């Protein structure tokens, strides 16, 4: 077990290094930030001074080495625009995004698995068909449009829920969270549902496909032949088997939800990392973009590790031994 974790961490380190090179090279290709950063009236001297101050006059590999050097010390550079450490800026926005993403995943799982089970157990029933048709809508409607429709319906027309922002927050572990206050929770509902919609459809489809396959297995019939109640057959024998693919996908998707909640955050003015990223790209604020991408990579790596560990809990056939290469 320990060997497994250590080896995974080593692999992850390679991923992070490769990623930082790619990110650094990529960010160089998208233009010179200096034109955006200084006022158009600035003269040549001011311009050269700014370039020197930001280290932009050095060749790329030198800039990269400087970046790596300071990154190892936990310093991912200073935001060109805000003049504060980029990492701090990203991390400060991180809880808002994490909260939104986790709530969205929660909605997707809590609704998606029962609906998928139902549709899988009774594929020809009316309810089963409605669930599947609904999941097609969830897949195909664009997120930003659904977001605006939600605002139109629940915020503007009905006036039940607020249209944007985080609302009131309460502090836990020194970090502000919206879900701890009633007002924050009300602000959280619409963006979370919006972000969850696509994942919900995905979970429904996965759970349904798994259920249809597992329900035909001999061990399900054997479980019934033992005289078990349907709730136990479905809730234990079937559910535990379909959770394996669901957990895989959810793990991968949690990363992508966090990384790409950009659209939802923009529509609902949710002050998370995604919104910060969009602003930073527009302003060519390189350190912030890089810090954001590295944080995201680390997040993916950690989530994948957790998924692998959860696997071994779900499926006893998977042994996390380190014996074989």
């Amino acid at each position, binding site marked *: 077990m320990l060997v497994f974790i250590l080896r995974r961490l080593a692999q992850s380190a390679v991923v992070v290094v490769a990623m930082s090179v790619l990110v650094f090279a990529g960010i160089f290709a998208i233009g010179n930030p200096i034109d955006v950063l200084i006022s158009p009236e600035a003269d040549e001297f001011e311009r050269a001074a700014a370039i020197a101050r930001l280290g932009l006059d050095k060749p790329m590999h030198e800039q990269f080495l400087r970046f790596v050097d300071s990154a190892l010390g936990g310093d991912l550079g200073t935001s060109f625009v805000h003049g504060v450490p980029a990492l701090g800026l990203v991390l400060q926005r991180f809880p808002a995004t994490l909260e939104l993403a986790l709530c969205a995943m929660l909605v997707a799982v809590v609704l998606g698995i029962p609906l998928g089970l139902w549709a899988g157990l009774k594929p020809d029933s009316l309810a089963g068909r409605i669930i599947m048709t609904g999941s097609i809508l969830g897949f195909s409607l664009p997120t930003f449009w659904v977001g605006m429709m939600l605002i139109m319906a629940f915020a503007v027309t009905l006036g039940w829920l607020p249209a944007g922002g985080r609302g009131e927050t309460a502090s836990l572990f020194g970090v502000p969270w919206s879900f701890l206050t009633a007002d924050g929770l009300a602000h959280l509902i619409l963006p979370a549902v919006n972000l969850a919609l696509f994942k919900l459809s995905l979970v429904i489809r996965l759970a349904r496909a798994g259920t249809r396959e597992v329900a*035909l*297995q*001999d*061990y*399900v*019939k*054997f*479980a*019934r*032949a*033992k*005289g*078990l*109640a349907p709730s*136990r057959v479905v809730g*234990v*024998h079937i559910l*535990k*088997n379909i959770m*394996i693919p669901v957990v895989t996908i959810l793990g991968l998707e949690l990363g992508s939800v966090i990384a790409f909640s950009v659209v939802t955050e923009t529509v609902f003015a949710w002050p998370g990392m995604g919104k910060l990223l969009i602003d930073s790209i527009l302003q060519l604020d390189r350190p912030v973009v890089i810090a954001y991408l590295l944080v995201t990579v680390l997040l993916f790596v950690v989530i994948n590790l957790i998924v692998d560990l959860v696997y071994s809990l*779900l*499926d*006893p*056939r998977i042994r996390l031994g380190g014996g074989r290469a």
Partner: protein
Amino acid sequence: MTEPLLRVDGLKTHFLTRAGTVKAVDGVSLRLDRGEILGLVGESGSGKSVTGQSILGLVDPPGRVVGGRVLFQGEDLVGAGEKRLRAIRGRRIAMIFQDPMMTLNPVLSIGTQMVEAVQAHEKVGRAEAWERSRRALVRVGIASPDERLAAYPHQFSGGMRQRVAIAIALLHSPDLIIADEPTTALDVTIQAQILFEVQKLCRETGTALIWVTHDLAVVSALADRVAVMYAGRVVETGTVAEIIGNPRHPYTRGLLESVPSRNRRGVPLRSIPGMTPSVLDLPEGCAFHPRCDRSTGACTVMPELSGEREDRAWRCWNPVAAEARGDAA
């Protein structure tokens, strides 16, 4: 004779598919006394497995029992509510399935799967259920049962898994076990062990057994009586000695002649010409007549089961003459 343990009367299980109605079981009648072992024999697709599952109402849609009765100690299980059936499943009638690799849930420990089987029918604590599971494993010859209860199915061999399945079937000392080809997927040596033990356990506990198989050799070693099925119907029934020694239906004779035997060393095996008919398109009358060397014009009408006794009968217009097997046996 007193009321039999199980009496199946004109059972019909049909599958309503898009391609048409598949009459997997079409008017099967069986009877079984307490402690008796019945071999239910037939080729793939003859409806023998579906018969077994129909008795407990375990046929999956689109299959459905559309007619007949299953009288278990006088109670009709066809049309019995799901709740009533659940009380019988596993406690009064247990089942063992064909593929031991597939009958145990891969993600649940053996202990979990045994304890839940105990607790499904009796309000006992986990510790007691565990102890009973342990004893059941010992009974089927599994060493270090505590270790085994904590293990998962993939850590067992095929033969061991089938022993576990048998132990689960025996947990509540049922009146009847329906075993659906439980040794087909096993090595011959393991098969012999399991056969011997199941027979012994059934004799000890007075449990009746329906052994579904395509293997006449297994049946001859195990059963008291045999019912031969073809295309959803019983075509011949009798004691093992009668069926093996003096088959009357040409299909039974064909089956026997296709089994290698020491007595007929050097004589080429005979096979039944043709193939099992498609269940969607059964021939008119006796379903076997296109493959039968004794068929006549009469065979386009379905013959009834008839014979010396209710439990020694055959479904044929031109039965093989008694004691007239033309081989060197």
